[in-house]
């Protein structure tokens, strides 16, 4: 549930990474702020870069928004592209495949078990995907605004369109200048929904909602161990909330 960009490199992580056989990193530089020092101190060659135990989840994923130009004036842009791909269930299947491959390389004896697990996960996603797509089919083309650029993969998968973010640039808090530009644009494009993660402040989203008639919807971007204990239930509940909110929100003019 934590803001994944700002995890602290706690010393206790060093111990955990020190004893790990496999390290799965999201990749696309999502963890670049805190993982490297942990790895330096963990002194674990099993998970060093290039080892079979080092899994980069982003491998094989088509990343969105790979910057064509890059410097710090653009905010917290990830040099390899938008790293929030896990909210696309199809990408999740690719990630599961990557993980299974690594597990087999590290622990060959139990490879058949991992293959079974992978197949089960893929089948589950495929079964759900049809339901999800059916549920969201009537909402195709709906325009939404998000707080940060972390639902882009999700909405792209289900045919909805992210037309703006409350942040003027990734990682830069909403500024009045940006919001005064965003609000008329949202009105003009009839945006009915503002999607934010649970850890975001509410002042700016509520302000924009008031001024545009759009609704603020809090969508978890990570399993939280409570309402959404695992990945499938996370997507499930996110889609349910999305459908419920949009059904309740009449189209504004």
């Amino acid at each position: 549930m934590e803001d994944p960009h700002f995890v602290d490199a706690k010393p206790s992580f060093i111990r955990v990474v020190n004893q790990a056989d496999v390290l799965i990193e999201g990749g696309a530089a999502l963890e670049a702020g805190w993982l490297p020092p942990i790895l330096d101190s963990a002194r674990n060659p099993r998970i060093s870069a290039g080892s079979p135990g080092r899994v980069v989840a982003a491998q094989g994923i088509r990343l969105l928004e790979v910057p064509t130009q890059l410097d710090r004036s653009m905010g917290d842009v990830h040099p390899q592209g938008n790293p929030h791909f896990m909210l696309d269930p199809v990408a999740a299947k690719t990630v599961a495949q990557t993980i299974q491959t690594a597990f087999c390389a590290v622990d060959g004896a139990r490879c058949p078990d991992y293959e079974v697990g992978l197949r089960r996960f893929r089948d589950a996603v495929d079964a759900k995907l049809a339901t999800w797509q059916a549920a969201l089919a009537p909402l195709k083309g709906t325009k939404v605004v998000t707080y940060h650029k972390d639902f882009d993969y999700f909405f792209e998968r289900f045919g909805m369109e992210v037309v703006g973010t409350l942040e003027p640039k990734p990682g830069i808090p909403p500024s009045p200048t940006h919001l005064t530009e965003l609000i008329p644009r949202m009105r003009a494009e009839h945006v009915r929904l503002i999607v934010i993660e649970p850890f975001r402040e509410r002042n700016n989203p509520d302000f924009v909602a008031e001024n545009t008639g759009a609704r603020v919807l809090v969508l978890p971007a990570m399993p939280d161990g409570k309402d959404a204990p695992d990945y499938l239930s996370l997507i499930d509940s996110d889609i349910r909330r999305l459908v419920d909110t949009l059904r309740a929100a009449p189209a504004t003019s």
Partner: protein
Amino acid sequence: MGKVSRRVGMAIAVLALGVAALPRGVRAENEELRRELEAMRKQLKQMQEQLEKQAEINQKQEELIRKLTAQTTAPPAPAPAPAAAPPSPPSQPAPSAPAPEKPREPWSPTQPITILSGARGYLNLSFDALMDFGWSTTPDVTTIERGDHDPLQRGFTLPNEEIFLDGAVDPYFKGVADLVFKLDENNETEVELEEVYLTTTALPWNLQAKGGQFFTEFGRINQQHPHAWDFVDQPLVIGRMFGPEGLRNPGARLSWLAPTPFYSEAFLTVQNSHGGTAFSFRNADEELFGRPPLERRVRNPGDLLYAPRYAASFDLTDSQTVVAGLSGAFAPNASGPNTRTQIYGGDLYWKWKPPWQAGGFPFASWQTEALGRRYEAGAATLERPGLPTVALPRETLFDWGVYSQVLYGFTQRWVAGLRGDWVSGDRGANSRSSDSSTTMTTASSLAMTAPCGCRSSSCSARTRLTSSNERERRHHGNDPTIAQHEPSDPLDGPRAWGRRQAQGRRDHSRPRRRRARCRGR
């Protein structure tokens, strides 16, 4: 997929050339034009075929490599299990990728080429610049700002501009270099090789070795670079024990990560014990406690600096972490032929950051360090023209100090801090600084930080405002206010986890350092 799209890109380029050539053909003859086109088409087809062949060969080679890697890394695995490919070729599709992914965008010259990056560059590079603006009631700012990277004068100071390089040297070593530039009061540029060291990455038994020139792993603030501090200047007690430049020297360090259920690490550092960066030790440049320093040579390994440290950390809850450490530093000092210094330190760090944090805020932290010094001062006779001769006995002197600071990140990008420090008077110090007073300072800080935490190069900017007030028995009323803007990248290691510290103040117990000698830290 990458290969396919690359081919598309090339074909387009060839076609574009063809179109550009058309007008001339039109003006000439249709027949000729057709022939030219035909020839081009053939050429294009040939090129495509060649490319396809090349792609096939590439694929075969990749497969072969994958098979070979699988064989060497995981012999018990059933043959088709390929080893995880190294993270470098991100375009390589996972074997039997389940769903049809959209093809990658064709490569274009505007696409970024990674030269330096956090994840997979050869080198991480950052430039960390400190720029100070300071004012104080005393015109001589260096009497109250002891650190070499503290503001040095009324007005503007650029006390620490560093180029930080790090990267893997080979599969077994990681290298770090930190080159510091600074402007002194006369606006002369000073250059300093502040830190250069190698760290092992693959020693057995949870050991890690480090060799080169580096900050001694003693306490918390000594290991951190000035741009990572929360206050503009360094703590008083650190200045007193370790001097303006901190404790660092060429040497080696071995650390052991203990297999305990919590984080627990033991360090032993052995370094040279001389020079201004070993301030309380064989430091021939500084007159400590009135004793003129002697040139002492290294007679045996016992004359080197030995610095053990133990640190442990506990996660009290999901949102609270404590790190505690004990450190020591032992080496001869320059006040006599057989005199030694022992410095002991304890440090404690607590941080609260709730799981619902956004952008690293809110948070609160508390950091305290206490240091004590046992200084064997040699006998000395001071003869000054016009003054009576003073005989100083051989004696053992003790002094100590503590600083404590609280930080509160109350809203995104804003941090308020308060620090207090205290050092004891120097018992038995020489007659020229006979005040046996204690010195207390308080500093308050307000910092604005840009987001940090996404990449390891050129990461953050902070503007810190520190105002401090110093009280000492005989002097009152120095109120320097220091503002600093610092576009920087705090590359702190996990032992420097979290935020960092601050401040510093006047110390009357020793003669003012000679500025000309000061070097960067």
